[in-house]
């Protein structure tokens, strides 16, 4: 049974795709069948993912590929394929499970929406594309699914198309990620030019296997450039600096979309991509360091710190989580860059669970507060929304990295561990520690604003969300806690599963000096947050209630951070303004220069036409008229031969036959 799914991996993405197609053909009022179809499709995908996951447990370093020809032109054959290895299987499990929770949550969250049916069609479409992405064994196939998830993201960010801000955000997300994908595409072409194949694994001939790597290894600089070009795509998708600007704006989409696409799965695809083609990045590594990996590290550090800083000063509940996502993705990139591939992927998986939980929790809060996003207008929600509060707190502690009981703590620890051992620089380690403090701080700020204190304008008459929304929260919270069992240093099962070793149980490894460093720092971050925001939302000495305590203390810094470091404005002044100018210049050139040129040629043509017209009418027409008159009179003569007498025709046929006969006999 389980080996059957290994050879039919395509079924996993095909099921949600099929569900999406069927839902698209439903009418707008068939809400129940749409939701049922989407959930069933996702449930089956999860079942098949589990079936596919089982065989990977049996052997270490399990890897099965199935390649097939897509098309052939000339002597070139383009081959695609599917792969099942621990990386793909773990991603499948996470995506399918988180996806299922979010599908169920959406049934409650979107219940009032007019376009409920269309929403589920898009959601299923996304799920299918994302599941396909992780099992692709070819850069081309991966790219196809990559663009499909991008399309799904575009459609879902702009789902409430009647809002201009949603349409603008969708457009921004699409264009920004396209800039990265341009690099990805160029890298793909270059890779094909160098290695002659885009299959990852192909029985020793794939581009990530010895033969392909040997071909690339001839010029390590080129390999590095290819890796960096591919990283451009990853940076665009995963919201890395300087292409991170679309991700916070993408929060204009419905909250389940933010949870599924812009927190748990699609944005992690960039990290997944880097992990998938990691042999390209580490080609020719000395001591685990290559120029391309160094770039990845510094981009990741910049992103992680910058986003964490900005998150401290945001007021929109989803925007805080969005910047947190950007920051965490930066952290994963750092982990990959310093060589901790397994740690990065573990953090990706753990992050998928708890960030989806946080987003769904925020969705529940927004639902309860009748669509309010501003945390300064909430407050005191822990009493009316107990389930949301408890699950949200679990997510918050997992994200902050509270150790021992929460998955995020262990994976963050692994990443810090890998960072500390990076030979190139120790600064990254300290910067990452700063990021840990900041993460704890902004999450504490958020949770105090939303759930503690007194109720403010938006949090009156708040109710707990229906069962269909709280159940996924509980499931995800349980995942966020119990996932940590697989992650502890005492029994690092997931780590060894990903690297293809076998896990040993050793309790001693739980006690490490670095562990206490981060424990202290997380405590410091949470403690500082509690101290700083103890009276948030209430007036305090000469500070009015609506002013943030940090803003009161450091107005200039706060303004800088609240305005997202003016990066959007910078882009508007530079890139966008430049495009605008170029467009205007082209427009002007078109209108006046080229148009004038074309008109000039047109005038010459017109003159010539007038001349030829006169020649035609005087000279040629007369000749043609004569000819046609001749043909007409000839026709009149010939038509008399058509007597309409059948016997005449028959006689002519007989004479013709006789003539042929005589001709033949004479020639013979």
């Amino acid at each position, binding site marked *: 049974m389980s080996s059957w799914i290994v050879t039919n991996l395509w079924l996993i993405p095909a099921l949600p795709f099929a569900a999406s197609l069927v839902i698209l053909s439903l009418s707008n009022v068939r809400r129940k069948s749409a939701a049922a179809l989407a959930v069933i499709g996702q449930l089956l995908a999860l079942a098949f993912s589990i079936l596919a996951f089982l065989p990977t447990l049996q052997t270490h370093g399990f890897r099965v590929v199935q390649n097939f020809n897509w098309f052939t032109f000339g002597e070139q054959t383009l081959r695609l394929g599917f792969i099942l290895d621990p990386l793909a299987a773990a991603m499948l499990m996470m995506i399918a499970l988180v996806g299922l929770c979010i599908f169920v949550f959406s049934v409650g969250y979107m219940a009032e929406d007019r376009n409920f049916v269309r929403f589920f069609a898009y959601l299923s479409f996304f799920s299918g594309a994302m599941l396909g992405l992780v099992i692709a064994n070819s850069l081309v196939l991966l790219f196809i699914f990559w663009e499909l998830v991008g399309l799904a993201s575009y459609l879902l960010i702009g789902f409430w198309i009647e809002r201009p801000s949603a349409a603008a955000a969708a457009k921004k997300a699409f264009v920004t990620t396209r800039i990265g994908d341009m690099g990805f595409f160029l890298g793909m072409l270059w890779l094909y030019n160098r290695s002659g194949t885009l299959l990852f694994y192909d029985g020793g001939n794939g581009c990530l296997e010895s033969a392909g790597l040997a071909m690339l290894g001839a010029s390590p600089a080129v390999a590095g450039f290819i890796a960096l070009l591919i990283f451009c795509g990853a940076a665009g998708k995963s919201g890395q600096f300087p292409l991170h600007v679309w991700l916070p704006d993408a929060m204009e989409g419905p909250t389940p979309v933010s949870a599924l696409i812009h927190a748990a799965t699609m944005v992690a695809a960039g990290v997944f991509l880097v992990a998938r083609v990691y042999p390209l990045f580490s080609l020719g590594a000395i001591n685990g360091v290559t120029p391309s990996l160094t770039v990845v590290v510094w981009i990741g550090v910049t992103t992680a710190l910058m986003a964490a800083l900005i998150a401290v000063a945001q007021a929109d509940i989803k925007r805080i989580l969005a910047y947190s996502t950007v920051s965490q993705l930066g952290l994963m990139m750092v982990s990959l860059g310093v060589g901790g591939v397994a740690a990065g992927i573990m953090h990706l998986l753990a992050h998928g669970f708890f960030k989806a939980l946080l987003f769904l929790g925020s969705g529940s809060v927004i639902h309860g507060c009748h669509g309010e996003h501003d945390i300064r207008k909430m407050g005191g929600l822990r009493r009316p929304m107990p389930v949301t509060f408890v699950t949200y707190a679990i997510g918050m502690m997992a994200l902050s990295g509270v150790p021992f009981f929460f998955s995020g703590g262990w994976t963050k620890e692994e990443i810090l561990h890998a960072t500390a051992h990076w030979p190139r620089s120790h600064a990254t380690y300290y910067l990452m520690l700063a990021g840990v403090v900041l993460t704890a701080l902004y999450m504490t700020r958020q949770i105090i604003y939303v759930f503690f204190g007194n109720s403010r304008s938006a949090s009156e008459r708040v109710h707990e969300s229906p069962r269909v929304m709280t159940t996924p929260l509980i499931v995800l919270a349980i995942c966020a806690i119990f996932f940590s069992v697989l992650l502890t240093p005492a029994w690092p099962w997931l780590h060894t599963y990903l690297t293809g070793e076998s896990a040993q149980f050793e309790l001693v490894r739980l006690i490490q000096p670095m562990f206490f460093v981060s424990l202290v720092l997380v405590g410091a971050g949470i403690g500082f947050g509690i101290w700083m925001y103890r009276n948030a939302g209430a007036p305090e000495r000469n500070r009015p209630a609506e002013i943030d305590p940090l803003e009161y203390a450091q107005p200039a810094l706060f303004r800088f951070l609240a305005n997202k470091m003016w990066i959007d404005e910078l882009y508007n002044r530079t890139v966008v303004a430049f495009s605008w100018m170029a467009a205007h210049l082209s427009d002007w050139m078109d209108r006046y220069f080229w148009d004038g040129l074309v008109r000039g040629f047109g005038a010459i043509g017109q003159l010539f036409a007038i001349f030829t017209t006169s020649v035609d009418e005087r000279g040629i027409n007369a000749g043609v008229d004569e000819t046609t008159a001749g043909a007409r009179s000839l026709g009149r003569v010939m038509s008399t031969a058509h007597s*309409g007498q*059948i016997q005449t025709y*028959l006689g002519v046929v007989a004479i013709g036959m006789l003539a042929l006969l005589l001709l033949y006999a004479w020639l013979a």
Partner: protein
Amino acid sequence: MTPTLQIFLIVSGALFSIGLLAALSRRHAIFILIGIEMMLAAANLNFIAFWRFGPQHQPPTGVMIAIFSIAIAAAEAAVGLAMVIAVYRHYHTTNVDQLDQLRG
């Protein structure tokens, strides 16, 4: 003297020419059909004669073609005569001289 192939072919040629004569010279539509049937019979006679005088094959191709052409000629006669009746009903004549609507 036993008859040679030539003699048979000349007889069939004569039959064909008589059929042609009937089809070309007579005004009545039925004569045209009679003439066509005679020309077809001449063709069949040719097939049989060539089969008899030529090298022998299994199956006997010439005979087979003659059988099929007889069947087709029967169909043709049936449709042709039906057309004669239809034309007679419509124009109240079977004289092909008067049927010249196709005149150019």
